[in-house]
């Protein structure tokens, strides 16, 4: 099992940023998600975030909403998410679960942390869990030996960045812009400043996500961040492909472009 700490140490030794890819479990199919995530790893992703599909993804833009909707329509359950994590972790990538809070709340915090660790997962990203509400989850995660990643945003004042960073282990997720997930023409102007402000509050790696979708953007972000997070752009490749094989080829192509990007 590869930990986040190993990933960031290795990337640092290589003088590059880590590449983090996101894909919801169950999309395009249950097995297809494992195949696509494996292709992402083979193309150069160091870390994979497996999305736990949720009925009310209020932080996500149309691309991820579409993928998540298809996944839920495919009947994806938490057992499938864990099976996906298990499959992806075997590739050697550090594998996280990204999820809204309610599915964990319902499943049981201790049980989810234990089952995720059992599947080879190394942590979670929980975009709607604020520091104030995160106590139970952090305790359960610590007990199971998995990392907890939370988000800071361009609107976050220093006091909030501090509070969020104190709850993080593994890394801090810096949202590049004020908005929902989705690839955009340019990465938010606020991202670099946010990373700088976050670094004054923590020694943890700081990774940037939201709106990154090309090798050029990855290179730009890699100049100042420890990791580059890409989600919607991978999903878009799968959505636009006429069949599974060409989808995987397209994902590989994007992965390689981004992997070159994070190497500057």
């Amino acid at each position, binding site marked *: 099992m590869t930990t986040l700490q190993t990933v960031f140490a290795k990337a640092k030794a290589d003088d590059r940023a880590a590449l983090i890819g996101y894909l919801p479990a169950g999309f395009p199919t249950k097995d297809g998600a494992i195949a696509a995530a494996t292709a992402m790893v083979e193309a150069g992703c160091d870390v994979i975030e497996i999305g736990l599909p949720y*009925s*009310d993804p209020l932080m996500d833009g149309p691309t991820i909403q579409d993928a998540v909707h298809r996944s839920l329509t495919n009947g994806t359950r938490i057992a499938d998410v864990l099976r996906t994590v298990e499959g992806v972790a075997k590739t050697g990538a550090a594998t996280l679960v990204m999820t809204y809070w309610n*599915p964990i709340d*319902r499943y049981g915090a201790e049980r989810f942390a234990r089952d995720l660790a059992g599947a080879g997962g190394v942590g979670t990203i929980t975009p*709607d869990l*604020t520091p104030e509400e995160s106590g139970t989850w952090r305790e359960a995660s610590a007990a199971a030996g998995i990392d907890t990643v939370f988000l800071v945003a361009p*609107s976050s*004042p220093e006091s909030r960045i501090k509070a969020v960073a104190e709850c993080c282990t593994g890394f801090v997720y810096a949202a590049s812009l004020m908005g929902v997930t989705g690839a955009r023409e340019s990465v938010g102007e606020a991202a670099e400043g946010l990373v700088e402000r976050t670094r004054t509050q923590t020694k943890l790696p700081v990774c940037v996500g939201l709106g990154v979708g090309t090798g050029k953007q990855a290179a730009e972000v890699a100049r100042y961040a420890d990791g580059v997070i890409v989600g919607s752009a991978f999903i878009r490749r799968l959505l636009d492909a006429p069949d599974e094989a060409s989808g995987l080829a397209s994902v590989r192509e994007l992965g390689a472009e981004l992997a070159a990007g994070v190497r500057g």
Partner: protein
Amino acid sequence: MTATDGILLTPADLAGNGVHGDDPDVHGKFGVFGGRYVPEALIPALDEVAAEYEKARNDVAFLREFDHLLRTYAGRPTTLTEVPRFSEQAGGARIVLKREDLTHTGAHKINNVLGQALLTKRLGKNRVIAETGAGQHGVATATAAALMGLECVIYMGAVDCERQALNVARMKLLGATVVPVTNGSQTLKDAINEAFRDWVANVDRTHYLFGTIAGPHPFPEIVRDFARIIGVEARRQMLELTGRLPDAVAAAVGGGSNAIGIFHAFIEDQDVQLHGYEAGGRGVETGEHALTLTEGSIGVLHGSRTYVLQDDEGQTIESHSISAGLDYPGVGPEHAWLKDTGRATYHGITDAEAMDAFALLARTEGIIPAIESSHALAGALKLGRELGPEATILVNLSGRGDKDMGTAMKYFNL
């Protein structure tokens, strides 16, 4: 004479006396319910709204402005109406209606939107967004936005746009942009998701004018306080009319704003029973209902811990009700707290029971109620038979039924 004499709402009226659990704690918790489960990006905006509201609620100038609008624009105070012919079907119990249907725009929603539109101006923002189910909150928001010169965008599920076409036209006429939401179940919950997405991207100049007492802190508290005038007035009026407090207060519960609006002034009156009526839809056994408090379980939806209709893995279950305004799989956290403390009791009313009460009030009293409010009327009929002819029941007639004529024509073959 004090500075607040002669106005409808004093600072104490606005927020109650802050007895334990009555006001949320610093994190917006009513017991274990409420709080904030939202992207961190929105926390500063929520903090800003909370801080500005805290200043506003203690500012006599703000209260006077709100009071002026409630009197001269919304048409407050609204009257009480006794309904003896309707009451005959309720075992002879004395039923009294609080006539929120007589307010401008035809529903209690106007109270909250006027308060929040004033708050928007204090925040220095020039754009409001809102979600709407039945369209009543959308119409009310568009109205307040027109009145105060604010840009207005309303998110409404595509299914609701269809069943409430008249309200869509009203909002457009009032100058609002109506965005049909086509993802998920295409109803209120999806409209809320979409409004949050807009808010996070445009938070600098936009206030999310939340329409019910759900959502992240401080919305449950703010919306309650602006709706609280309903119960404050009704309590005084009941004492004038009957010389005593009612035995029970009845209200429909979707998100829960009209119910909390009339309940809240009675919470400390331990002898007054509080009854909330949720949408039982086609019946609990069919699974097609919106019985969040009576059949749901504790979870997180739309930024708040509360009762939710969800499956065993926390996925939201789509609700059903003949009334778009009650068709919501969550509920305000304060109702969750009132339920768990036993202070209020919640029941289900089926589509059929609500429509019977809808028709009965029209025929016996010449009042066409909103289908939402008809759930409270149906509840009062049952409650009256239980409590007996000596009982007095105050019902929140939260809105009028003009918007529901399409549904009624189909249902009754009119």
